[in-house]
């Protein structure tokens, strides 16, 4: 990992989408044990995966992981905290008027 250079790797992954009444969730799992670090970008290839209502869809795909440079990783670790309020739930969007 260079100070300023990004590395790109590809990883097989499984995308699971549940569009059921009992559970609405979606996850991406890397099948080669790839680990995501702060500042990395992930792109799952292929078209949109749509699960019809009432179903769980699980699909094997390929993903590209664009690794953050050393500097970017450090920067994300230092500044990521500023966005922490996103974790809070306020029932409404931040739009002032609708």
């Amino acid at each position: 990992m260079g100070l300023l250079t990004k590395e790109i790797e590809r990883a097989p992954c499984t995308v699971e989408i549940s569009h059921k009444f009992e559970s609405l969730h979606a996850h991406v799992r890397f099948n080669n044990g790839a680990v995501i670090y702060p500042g990395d970008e992930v792109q799952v290839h292929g078209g949109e995966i749509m699960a019809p209502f009432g179903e769980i869809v699980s699909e094997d795909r390929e993903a590209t992981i664009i690794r953050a440079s050393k500097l970017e990783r450090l920067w994300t670790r230092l500044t990521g905290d500023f966005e922490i309020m996103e974790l809070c739930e306020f029932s409404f969007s931040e739009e002032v008027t609708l």
Partner: protein
Amino acid sequence: MNVQNTPEKYEGKHTADATTVEEGLAIQEEQAKYDDDFATETAMSNTLLTPRFYTTDFDELDAIDVSPVRGEWDRLIAQMEADPNKGHFKKNDDWDTVDWENMEPQLKKEFIDFLISSCTAEFSGCVLYKEMKRRGNNEDITRLFQLMARDEARHAGFINDALREAGLRVNLGFLTQKKKYTYFRPKFIYYATYLSEKIGYARYITIFRHLQENPQHRFHPIFKWFEEWCNDEFSHGEAFALLMKTDPKLTKGKNVLWIKFFLTAVYSTMYVRDHQRPAFHKALGVDPDWYAHEVFTKTSKLSEQIFPITLDIEHPRWQPGLEKMQKANADLAQAKEDGRFFAKLGAQARAVSAFVSLLLIPAKKHQVPAQTRLEPAY
């Protein structure tokens, strides 16, 4: 592609396969029925969920040792595993028909904003908790996050169903978009999610109790489910309280300043956002100022279980500070829309100064009890 619960697809013959005219017409008719259903489905407006993706210090999470709170911890996990709310999130006869057509347009907009924001929040919580579950190696921690992810996904599914009734379809297509992972320190996740879960409990239970007394204001059946729903939020908050209890440093020294910052930020953001949805609160018959005060009082009382300070919400500068912040925020949006640079700058400065003024109100200090766990009592 692996589809579970195979859907009802039209798998009949194509008209080209028909051997007689009658058969061809019959096939066409079948196909048209399927196309109709499909059209109804796709005609629903698409709402793209846009959760964020986070990483944290997973080694630090693995290093958590819950032995100092083992008894309370095990009881909480056992209660969550028993899953008393499992059968709750089902639609039954209490789910009245909603007259979306005749709902006042502004109320409809604000209520849909409520449903979508809540669904996204539950969904993001689920993504975050699941990630923590998957990356962790500490069995106590991974079990907790698995249970919380389950609850959030269940809530999201329930809200999604209400959205479908309103003709809105969530789109989970974000998964194939490029996304960047940001980073939060574990302690910030504890402070923010603990408060978010507890304030969520206080918000839901306050509305639930208000509507018990004033059922004429219940304009949608989803509010009837708020009681059990917020009990889930309550136990998630309990779990974060216990996590913080395992490391006394988290609630001492300069971390107390962080706690004060989070309390002020969460309370004031809630105040501002609620005041931006007047039609929603009017329909519920709730004065947003009264509501904010109720919710802050309950949240402060609850947070005494772990935080050594609470905000002085009776202080003479508190309410005016919130009002200034809300005004500045509204002016800021207006200035942005009009493209007035200096007005925007001025509004930003007023918002920051109002926030700092709220932050500088001396906090109330108190002794944190030895036993952390609470039961929902409001």
